Structure formats: C-alpha cells, structure tokens
C-alpha cells in the first residue's frame, strides 16, 4: 500500500528504513514516525518519540500514528492467527518490494 500510494501521488520514498528500523524514508516526519513505532512496540521511550512526532508534523499526526500502530497490531494478529495466504499473483506483482523489505524471511510469507 505504501508503494502504491507513493506512486499514485508521485511521492518519492525510501523503503529501506521500514526493514531496518532507522533512516530517512523521505517523507515529512518519516524518521520520527519510524522511531515512534519502534519504541511503542518495544515499550520504552515512548513519550520522547511521541513528542518528536507531534513537534515535527503536529499533534493530530501523533494521535493518528498511535491509532495506525494499534490498528496494525490488530491486523497482524488476525492475519497471522488465521493463516492468511499470500497469493501467487501478489508475490509476482510485489516481487521487488518483497525483496527490498525482506518479507520472504517472515514466518508466514
């Protein structure tokens, strides 16, 4: 979805920080958002990371980021819990992203 939305909006983006957990994704507040996800799921240093997001791209952005993290904590558990298959068509159309984000190393890929 990230690749698709960035293509549709002609937004250049660096996907590597998604796999590596640090770096500049080339989006406003991107580094701060990556860090906010990291610390929220790790359970420490959340306050500073949240404030960094709010200071960089605004309080509403920090609240929305918290909501999106929560939503995908939910969706990941559902996808893993039901054994959602990845179709051959998806694998073909996403081959480049699968390689770049190292998704093939994931248990359910």
């Amino acid at each position: 979805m990230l690749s698709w939305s960035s293509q549709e909006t002609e937004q250049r983006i660096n996907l590597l920080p998604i796999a590596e957990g640090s770096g500049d994704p080339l989006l406003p507040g991107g580094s701060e958002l990556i860090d906010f996800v990291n610390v929220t799921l790790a359970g420490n240093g959340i306050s500073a990371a949240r404030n960094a997001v709010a200071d960089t791209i605004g309080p509403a952005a920090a609240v929305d980021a918290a909501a999106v993290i929560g939503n995908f904590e939910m969706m990941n558990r559902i996808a893993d819990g039901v054994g959602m298959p990845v179709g051959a068509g998806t694998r073909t159309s996403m081959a480049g992203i699968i390689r770049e984000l190292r998704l093939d190393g994931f248990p359910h890929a």
Partner: protein
Amino acid sequence: MFDFSTSPLPVRPELPAAFRHVWHRLAAPGTWWTGYERVSIASLARAAYDSGESIADSDLPAAAAEAVGSLAHEPSAVTQERIRNWESRGLHANRYVELVGVVAQLTAVDTFHRALGLELERLPDPQPGEPSQQLPDTAATLTKAWVPMVGPPTIPTSLSAVPAEMAALETLHGPMYLTYEEMGDPAITHGLTRAQMELVASRTSAINECFF
C-alpha cells in the same frame, strides 16, 4: 469510560466511540464464548502482552489459554500445526476465530493507549447470557487459510466464520486507520498523509514479521 480529557494530545471523538462499542461487545455474550469467557480472554491477552510470555494460570481451557498467549505476545509463532493441536484439544475452529478477534481488538485499543502514554482502560464487567452460536448466512469453508472463511481468504473475510467479530473489526478499522472505501484513495489525508499512514503500518508489520 475512555475519557481522553487528560490525554497529552487531543483525541478525535470517533476513537473513544469505537472503543466504547468494542468494550460493550467484549463484556456481552459472544457467538461461541460467554461474556465472562470473553473478558477472561482479554485479561489473559493483556497479561501475556505485558509480560512477553504466555500465562498458564487462567480460567480458560488450556488450549485456549495457549492460543491467547501466543496471539498476544508472539503472533508470528502461530502455525497451522499449532491451530490443529488446539483444535484436537477441544478449541473448535469457530471458538478459535472468535478468540482471535477478541485478542486482536484488545491489542488495538491497548496499543493506542500505550502509544499515547495513557493508563489502560479497565476491562469491563462481564454480562450474563449465553453465546448466540450464530453461523454465517453462507457456510464458511476451509480453503487456503488455516481457518474456515466465507469466500476466498482475504483480510476482509478473515473472521467471516464469526460474523459478529468481523463487524467488530470493521468498527475499529475505520476510525483507527481507514474504512475499506477510503483505502481506495491514495491521497487521503487525516492527521497523517496516506503515505505516512502506510509507513507506520509497514513498520509495525515489519516488527511483527507479518507479511500484510
């Protein structure tokens, strides 16, 4: 309940509204579990998430308690073999699907609170009554996913064997991320731009080692 007046950041009203709906449903009898059992599932999931390990001491049957623990703190470790093992020990597929829904919804709400530095909401008091045992209008079947679904296995049909859980998932999915209709708009912007939303979603999934 879900009073965000002390939140360090302003919380838009559709979020507490969705959370209240989920809490109300959590306490009520579900499709295959009683209200008491559903709150027990949520309580165990919260404890497992906090501790990073499964908790053996529970009112739930052992197979259900194992499933809750794994889903809560290490969902990528759930395998088809483990689900079949739980099934062979009495955790029927429909009961398992509802359990997945309860753990997932609890995790969504709790994670939002943790991210904003807010105290977790107290779990609701269970409501009396019996599970509805309502089946989907069209029979769920086992195809390429590990649990039965109505139609081809996709995220929107993931919990379709238990329609009430599918509806609850959608109650949260819209306010916390995007509705299915909004997902078709690559330029949609709320507090975050669409690209920023997807960056957060992708990094969350990467940490959880989840393909989706």
